[in-house]
């Protein structure tokens, strides 16, 4: 059998990353962490990411256990509840999309269900409903549909409308930053 240097190289380069404790706890800490951190913009938690290229057209249901970037066309259903799904700038999805973090830079005609956060980038468009604990729409993005939002903190005594002060929303750093950038 011929010796394949590529195969022997891979374990040695990947082993340190696998032994690193960082990725695993990150997936189990949401119960203690109040919101996704800044790393949430990059779907890289497991270090595994599949890409559907721009020339690929898939009709049917997509399921799996790794993060997914869609640059092609998908019709059907994208069901990656435990993983991050990114619809890239070239991506066109006519399907309901289930993911932990769902980032839309392309077009989605369907409903988006994000376990942690749905992020609609400036270049993105969604025609459908969004269901997520946290929804961020960047300036210039296009959205038509409904957003189902749970109150962030039911124990909060002061909703914005009750304060009577001309001040910004109490907890909107990301959205405000996004607006300013737009």
């Amino acid at each position, binding site marked *: 059998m011929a010796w394949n240097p590529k195969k022997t190289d891979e374990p040695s380069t990947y082993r340190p990353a696998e032994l690193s404790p960082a990725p695993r706890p990150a997936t189990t800490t949401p119960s203690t962490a109040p919101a996704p951190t800044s790393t949430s913009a990059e779907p890289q938690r497991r270090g595994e990411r599949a890409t559907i290229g721009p020339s690929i057209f898939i009709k049917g249901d997509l399921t799996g256990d790794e993060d997914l970037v869609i640059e092609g066309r998908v019709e059907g259903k994208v069901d990656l509840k435990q993983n991050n799904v990114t619809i890239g700038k070239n991506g066109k999805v006519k399907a309901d999309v289930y993911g932990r973090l769902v980032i839309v830079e392309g077009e989605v005609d369907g409903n988006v269900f994000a376990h942690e956060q749905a992020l609609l980038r400036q270049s993105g468009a969604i025609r459908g409903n969004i269901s997520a604990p946290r929804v961020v729409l960047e300036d210039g993005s296009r959205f038509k549909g409904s957003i189902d*939002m749970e109150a962030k903190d*039911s124990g909060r005594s002061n*909703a914005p409308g009750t*304060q*009577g002060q001309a001040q*910004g929303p109490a907890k909107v750093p990301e*959205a*405000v930053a996004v607006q300013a950038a737009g």
Partner: protein
Amino acid sequence: MSWFSFRTARREAAHPIAAPVQAGTEPEIHRSLALPTVFAALARGPRANVLDLGTAIGSNVEHLSEFGCRLSIEDLFMTRMSAADGEQLGPEFFEQLIPLPNGPQFDVVFAWDLFNYLTRKELAHLTARLRQACRPGAQVLALIWYHKSIPAQPIRFRFHGTEQLVYDRRTALERPGPRFQPAEINQLMSGFHVDRSFLLRHGIQEYLFVRE
């Protein structure tokens, strides 16, 4: 009378009817006297259904998320642009724009300044649909320009705290304003009564309608 359309917008883009607003101007911030009432209702009531007829704006969504409401965003202006290029919109357009599978469902409607971008007939169709869409007691916030010329496209309004709105103009171009009279607006909004109406110094009359 010719009203707004993409064609007229393009024509006006080539020959603006008013001096363009300087590009890069900071968005204006104006006090809204009706907004605190809307937010108070959202904070007080059970989980509300909110209809935003304007463009989706991230900071507004974030702001409304504090109330835990269900928000429907129907970009009326852009939907109109893509649906009919300058043609008169019929009632079926508004029925598709605001689907009501479960009957009246909305508690708050943000109509912003969009009434100014519809013909009187279209506005009548829209208000008829809003009558069907709103629950009794529902509030509708609308801003009516009384200037001769208004921005060529609807302004993007952002919540700035609970009492102010940021007016973000999309274009420096202007077009003739419809100059709806208060009596006309009241007639068009039959089924609603004017809860509050404020004439603001910058040329806008702010209305808060309540569904009867």
